[in-house]
């Protein structure tokens, strides 16, 4: 999960939007059925069920950092049994905004590998795109099915204390977490079936079917009954569980680089009955490891020659190569402009206001307001090289100021957001407010599909806004209800 670690906002006496209750403490209507149930159910039964959930997750093996230590012990991402509920009307508006955003991002990716209209128009500085480390010259002039580069997109959303949704980050490379969305729902239905008879919760279980349809829709034209595989870096990858889970749910092979090879212009996998042609690869391997002949020569995860087959249109990759230009923090501020540029529409989903320190005016503002802002490294991943103004000491701020002034183009700054909260079980029987975000998954192929819901991550520590799974973050089931 490339992006989860960006969650360092500070919780400092600001007000939060609560998903369950309004500012006066009154229950929001879409939570009523659940709240009635919660009140009528003895706390002992709920805590028993929570223990049962832990056991079940262990048995099924829904774990992360699967192999981590030689201990063979695997860690669970804590699962909270209070769902995060979204009314259908609100979801529909979100889904529209997500579809619009992902369409524009795909148009952008197509454009920058073709005629570069948006750069010619000056809407985005050309050097920011063309010198971007994720920009792949190998993709120049290549036409992808339906012009779609990011077939599977995970868009991270947060709700601010104005009650509005904001996009925090786009994930267009190999976003993960969808297996938790599905397993969390199955777990809730198994533990509390009575909840689902009280109100209609829109299903998410058909995600693997939609995913397989999406992948089949981008198969080369001459593949009549296309063979689709999931390509994993292997059991040592922290998302291996998800790769295996999705392959199993779609009923297709889970392959590693060594299972695939290129011969006579096609991609094949080695099976006990000889070699078999592969038409679509849902790859969960990063661009630079995909083909040692084209990218990193020391990659053992990839398939030599795969890029040439891809460029010849004889195998499809999902996601396409070179999508990383569209999803990092230096390009993020331009997404609203992309929507206007390509679609001629106003963005339905807002960005978090962002100051680009490469611009002198923005830099001046940021330097003046360091104690209030969150400053992030553009290329950074995982919270290194980041300043959380309100939580930093004077000395830390001054040290950061020096670094920022030395290379302003490497940084952006954002106001400290106030994430919305959702009631969450704490301790044995207590319930308290904890911060949440939401990652819906957008599938793009012949058509665009979004299952109603996504992965809700929750910061389990009081006041914490870190929903990262390795730092005390958990997950919740996400309900879209009528």
């Amino acid at each position, binding site marked *: 999960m490339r992006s989860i670690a960006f969650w360092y906002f500070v919780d400092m006496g600001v007000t939060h939007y609560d998903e369950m209750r309004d500012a006066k403490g009154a229950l929001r209507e879409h939570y009523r059925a659940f709240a009635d149930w919660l009140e009528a159910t003895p706390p002992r039964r709920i805590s028993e069920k929570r223990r049962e959930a832990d056991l079940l997750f262990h*048995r*099924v*093996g829904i774990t992360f950092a*699967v*192999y981590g230590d030689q*201990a*063979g*012990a695997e860690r669970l991402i804590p699962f909270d049994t209070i769902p995060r509920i979204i009314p259908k009307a609100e979801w529909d508006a979100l889904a529209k905004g997500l579809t619009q955003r992902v369409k524009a991002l795909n148009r952008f990716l197509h454009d920058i590998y073709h005629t570069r209209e948006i750069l010619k128009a000056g809407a985005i500085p050309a050097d920011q795109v063309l010198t971007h480390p994720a920009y792949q010259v190998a993709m120049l002039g290549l036409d992808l099915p339906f012009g779609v580069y990011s077939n599977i997109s995970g868009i991270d959303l947060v709700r601010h204390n104005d009650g509005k949704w904001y996009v925090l980050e786009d994930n267009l490379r190999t976003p993960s977490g969808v297996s938790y969305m599905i397993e969390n729902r199955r777990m809730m239905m198994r533990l509390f079936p009575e909840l689902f008879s009280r109100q209609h919760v829109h299903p998410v279980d058909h995600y693997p079917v939609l995913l397989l349809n999406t992948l089949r829709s981008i198969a080369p034209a001459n593949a009549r009954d296309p063979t689709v595989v999931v390509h994993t870096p*292997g*059991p040592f990858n922290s998302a291996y569980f998800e790769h*295996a*889970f999705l*392959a*199993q749910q779609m009923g297709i*092979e*889970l*392959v*590693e680089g*060594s*299972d695939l090879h290129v011969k006579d212009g096609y991609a094949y*996998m*080695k*099976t*006990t*009955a*000889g070699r078999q042609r592969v038409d679509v690869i849902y790859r969960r391997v990063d661009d630079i490891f995909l083909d040692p002949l084209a990218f990193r020569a020391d990659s053992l995860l990839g398939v030599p020659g795969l890029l040439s087959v891809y460029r010849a249109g004889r195998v499809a990759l999902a996601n396409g190569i070179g999508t990383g230009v569209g999803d990092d923090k230096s390009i993020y501020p331009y997404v609203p402009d992309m929507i206007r540029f390509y679609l001629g529409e106003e963005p339905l989903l807002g960005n978090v206001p962002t100051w680009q320190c490469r611009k002198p005016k923005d830099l001046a503002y940021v330097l003046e307001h360091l104690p209030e802002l969150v400053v992030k490294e553009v290329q950074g991943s995982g919270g290194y090289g980041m300043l959380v103004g309100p939580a930093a000491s004077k000395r830390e701020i001054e040290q950061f100021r020096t670094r920022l002034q030395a290379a302003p183009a490497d940084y952006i700054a954002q106001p400290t957001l106030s994430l919305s909260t959702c009631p969450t079980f704490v301790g044995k029987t207590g319930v308290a407010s904890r911060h949440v975000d939401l990652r819906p998954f957008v599938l793009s192929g012949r058509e665009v599909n979004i299952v109603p819901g996504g992965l809700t991550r929750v910061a389990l520590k009081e006041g914490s806004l870190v929903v990262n799974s390795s730092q005390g973050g958990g997950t919740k089931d996400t309900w879209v209800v009528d």
Partner: protein
Amino acid sequence: MLSRVADRIFWMSRHVERAENMARVLGVTSNLVLYGSKETQEQSLLAPLSSTGLADAYFARHRKLDLSTLIRFFALDERNPFSIYSLLKQARENAHEVRWQITSEMWETLNTTWLELRNARPGRVTGAGANDFFEWVKARSHLFRGVTYGTILRSEAYNFSRLGTFLERADNTVRILDTKYYILLPRVEDIGGALDYYQWSALLRSVSSYETYRALYRDQIVPIRVAELLILERRMPRSLAACFEQIVLAMDRIQGQHDHAAKRLAAEISARLTYSDIEEIFETGVHEYVDACLADINELTLRIQRAYLGVV
């Protein structure tokens, strides 16, 4: 099925079976050392080292050859690739990689076995605890085989698991026979000569066949009958003939493309075992016969790897 997946399932099953057989070999060695004279004691201790080719590795680290050092070397030594520890660890790692192609019960059995073994203290496996430990290893292997048989879909995963189990068992039965001749009859012309009742009964027990021998022959233990039981007796589940019956069955079910050479060899070995006569084998020499079997099994493994497992 992906060749890599078949390979992991094949070796997962082989490693479990090999760990069980290692426990059997150590059990019989312990008994032989208890009953034997000083001279045969040392031969008994050397036997597991020579049959695995690990004598050099052992003496590089240990000056003395005694029972408890030998058992530690073959039970818990992580640096010994043939130790029960290493074998069950590899079995678990193979299973981990294909846990979505096997049943959760199979995975849980191997994972639990590994977790328990990892916590075993060296003191547990030597002295009075040794037999309990060997019995535990055997029981975990029985459990794994039973769980596999009882839960997995009859498809290629099942076929390759069975293939691995019985190929390994055949290999081990041959090695046990080989070891026994190595101890007792270092020269070929001595075959059929003097024998030690305890040694033969220990050998029969190591393949769970002491009672079987009694039931089938109602006789005192003589080498030719022991050899017949271990090589040709189809009703004895650890005999070569029984193992190859299962190997051929598994291979018949596997849908291959370039596997003619492998299937032919398996069928040939099986046919030879079906129509062999133990008196003839004794005339030409059991040791030679056993050596030829070992060579056949190695060749068959190579052909299986080439035909199915992606080894070039």
